[in-house]
């Protein structure tokens, strides 16, 4: 087993933890954290393949992609957080209810 494989397997696990969190977590914040964890898993898999494909240096393309991806994910998470806080501020709700 090579290093990259450890991380690529981990990435799958993280992805699944994240997706499970999105499905099962109730609090807004936790759901948002779950998306970030999910994203972390995805990025980990990118970078693990970059390491696999390293020659003189690791494959720079996945690195660049991941940097871009992280920023995008953070922007999304920030927006989600803003929405969650606004909802809480307006209604005191911190979880989804079915009728809204």
């Amino acid at each position, binding site marked *: *087993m090579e290093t990259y494989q450890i991380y690529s397997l981990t990435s799958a696990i993280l992805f699944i933890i994240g997706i499970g969190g999105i499905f099962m977590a109730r609090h807004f914040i936790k759901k948002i954290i779950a998306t970030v964890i999910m994203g972390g898993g995805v990025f980990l898999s990118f970078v693990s393949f970059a390491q696999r494909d390293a020659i003189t240096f690791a494959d720079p393309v996945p690195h660049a992609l991941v940097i871009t991806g992280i920023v995008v994910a953070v922007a999304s998470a920030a927006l989600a957080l*803003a929405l969650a806080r606004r909802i809480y501020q307006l209604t005191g709700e911190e979880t989804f209810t079915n009728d809204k």
Partner: protein
Amino acid sequence: MSILIDILLAIIMVYLAIQCLLTPRLIQSVFLFFAFGLGLALAWVRLGAIDVAITEAAIAAGFLGVLFLDALKSFAPKVSVKQDNLEDIYKLPRRNIKSLILPRVILVLGLALFLFIALEAVWMIPDGGGLTASAEALLPQSGVEHPVTAVLLNFRAYDTWLEIGVILLGLLGVFVAGGIKLYKKPGASKPDPMLRQVILFVTPVLFLFGAFLLYIGKTGPGGAFQAAVLWGAIGILLHLGGKPIFAMIPRWLFHLILTMGLGFFLVLGFLLIADGRTLFEYPPAYAGLLILIIETLGAISIAAALTAIYANLNQMEEETNEVEPTT
């Protein structure tokens, strides 16, 4: 040996991730998220992705973690008002737990199957070879020496440009979500004398370190995003210290700072098109310079956007009284 480290790291990460989601207390969850982010950064380092590690630590763990922490203070008080038992302040509301058991069992089952299939897919992945070779071959033409920067700002500059747009867009979204009134005066905060001292000390250091990262990005790990987070930290600190810079400067300037990264990038691209090239096809001779300018302006814009995002979120509950609750 090193494999063992990696395995340990992986286990820790998985544990942190699971704990982060399972812990009933929100504050714990946020701190575990910090830890997870650091773990992830370590993993990047282990995988030789220093740029990613810095970005992760700075933005994903750092900036986002700060946002979460900030959110905690907003979520906390109301819970305490609502509930008598202080023990339960940070506990998640639990309603009709019984009705949740069956779906959860199914979900866990599904997750397990999914995991199994995903692991198989990851394990069985053929070696695609990546693009290292072509990146290496084209690196000299890119104007920079660090391959990641070359990819980010030259080979796939389009993605990066859009990504700067996404951050701006995120800010706009936060404006919208936070109520429009906040947009008018971002970051109006109460002064805090203690903080002000700290800020006075830290600001130049952060600025210089950011500039260093930006510059080093040309040849090694570092670059616009990392620098931007550091500079963004300045903004956040200033904000916390009662110096909401964006409330102090004229609006047009604020907008200019916000948009100049994106705008310059784009205008440059249009000029290149007008010159008969394609979008972001830098003249090889000026590539390095142009990339540096873009990085700098981009970093400033991103920093401004991050600051503004934080400021808005931080501000949110202070507006509570002014906003009439709508149904």
